[in-house]
């Protein structure tokens, strides 16, 4: 006779607002596994959770902040990065992570993305890329592959998408990686590395969205897109970000693409503080 195995708590429960579970994400969505990687990465990195803040924008991935039991901010659409910038500069002791979606970070918040990377502010961005706007029902966005279907590209998307690793690397990010939610161990390790690395770190996480994107693009079941990741992914650490462009059916290059050293915004600001004299008596 089988006996029910009851598990009261999970080791990562202390990082989650378990009183808010079940979450809002659809079955087979990749945001949940990525969130799990994130909290395990905080644990792995040995950070004091009291000093870690999570900032999100709007959208399915924007809801991550609400499930993480850290100081967490669910802000406006596209604006997680500047909000996080204020938080980090006003208290540089905080470890600040921005967890948001591709539309939030690369479309409405695209300007903030390139400027945050340019400043090399010490911050980790986890960008869930599910190739569309999931929460509003599956519209095309700046990461939707050419020819992919969405509710606002019913005949196929006629715009070229961003290659996000190339965009942020060119803008000045010092740590750039891409994984899919099939690569959970690599993703967790990568997030832990990014969280402890000074400077602007950006991790793109490809995630299935079977409910809307998948359904419109011949990947209707939850596992279809995971199978596609399995078949198409190539791990290539150190790949030139300009060569990692995504397409609807081409290879998915994953790995750590950039890991360089450059003074952070706060390092540079310290020099200014030293230079500024005390107020002159007038």
């Amino acid at each position, binding site marked *: 006779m089988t006996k029910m195995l009851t598990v009261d708590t999970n080791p990562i429960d202390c990082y989650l607002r378990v009183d808010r579970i079940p979450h809002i994400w659809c079955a087979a969505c990749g945001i949940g596994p990525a969130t799990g990687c994130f909290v395990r990465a905080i644990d792995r990195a040995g950070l004091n959770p009291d000093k870690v803040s999570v900032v999100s924008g709007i959208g399915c991935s924007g809801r991550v902040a609400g499930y993480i039991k850290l100081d967490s901010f669910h802000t*406006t659409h596209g*604006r997680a990065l*500047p909000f996080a*910038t*204020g*938080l980090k500069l006003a*208290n540089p002791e*905080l470890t600040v992570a921005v967890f948001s979606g591709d539309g939030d970070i690369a479309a409405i918040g695209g300007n903030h993305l390139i*400027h945050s990377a340019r400043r090399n502010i010490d911050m980790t961005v986890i960008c869930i890329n599910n190739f569309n706007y999931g929460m509003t029902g599956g519209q095309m966005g700046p990461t939707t592959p050419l020819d992919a279907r969405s509710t606002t590209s019913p005949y196929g998307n006629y715009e070229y998408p961003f290659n996000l690793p190339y965009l942020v690397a060119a803008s000045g990010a010092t740590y750039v990686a891409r994984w899919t939610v099939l690569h959970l161990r690599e993703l967790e390790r990568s997030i832990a590395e990014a969280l402890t690395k000074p400077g602007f770190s950006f991790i793109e996480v490809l995630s299935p969205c079977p409910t809307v994107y998948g359904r419109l693009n011949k990947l209707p079941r939850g596992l279809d897109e995971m199978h596609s990741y399995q078949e198409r992914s190539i791990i290539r650490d150190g790949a030139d970000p300009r060569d990692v462009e995504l397409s609807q059916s081409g290879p998915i290059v994953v790995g750590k693409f950039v890991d360089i050293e450059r003074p952070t915004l706060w390092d540079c600001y310290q020099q200014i503080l030293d230079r500024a004299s005390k107020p002159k008596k007038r």
Partner: protein
Amino acid sequence: MPKDDVLCGEFFMNGDTACAEGAISAGCRFFAGYPITPATEVAERMSERLPQIGGVFIQMEDEIASMNAVLGASWAGVKAMTATSGPGFSLMMENIGLGVMLETPCVVANVQRAGPSTGLPTLVAQGDMMQARWGSHGHYEIIALVPDSPQEMFDLTVLAFNLSEQYRVPVLLMADEAVGHMSEKVVIPQINSKELVNRPRPKVAPEKYLPYDSRKGLVPPMAVAGEGYRFHVTGLTHDDRGYPVMTAEAQDKLIRRLVDKIRLNIKDITKYEEVKIDDAEVVVVSYGISARIARYAVQKAREEGIKAGLLRLITVWPFADDRIRKLASAVKAFLVPEINYGQMVREVERCVAGKAKVRLISHMGGGVHLPETILEAIREEAR
């Protein structure tokens, strides 16, 4: 705060500079902004002063980012502000709403220029008064102050910080180009730390902390990031735990509190100055640079034996409803000179409710009223 952080003494400075010094005196140590005429001098002064005293100045990529950086800094426990003018104020609107929803203390200075759109970038107007009240979507209550001199740019910036901390709401300093660019004597006092207000702070253990606990008052205690409270805040309609709740009941409870925490404290918040009001038959209701001209016109009218008075609005939002209502039954006419085509005059009309005549004296912007224009209107209404 170290004493030498604040420049004390008498200075000849412009209004924008006085605003920056007021912020520093109030304890502001974070400024995020974007260049825009005629508010740029606030940012310039802050970029010079904040690094001297260990604060943070950052020029953001736009006004949307500036407003968000200010909110983020406030949630890290630092008093924060930004300064802008019309086009930037428009861009800030959505996140002023976020500031209201998260109940984030901060100050936004709008040194008004003529609009709409790019308008007259270097010339005065008072066209954003209703935008200050209603510019962000949804129903909310806000506090807005209007300085009429460089001295008040200083004084009201200090007051703005105090009110924002006390009520946990963004406070708007609705200056105008004339006051911002005018240079006059500004006296910077040594402000006693007791005169500075700090946001209510939680007194309970982290596991008992509720970010929007209103059981002991309409303004909940505010934890900040990094203290171990591990709180969640959201722009979604939320309950006292800060968790999203998508019901009409939660909306009702939240919006009533956000509005009532201001509305029920109008007596404490709303300030105005009265000049020769007691026996006045004609009352000029004005604010900012327009009030300075009105003051002169009222003085001239008195010299002619006309019973004229001035009600100068210092706090425009929430509006001085009770004062205007009370005056309405004793006054023949209200004159409202403002540099727009009729904004605050609507509030005066609402409160007067037909009991006296209300007359707008409009100027479309790019200049100020002539004292004679207001004086002539006073004479006409006194006849």
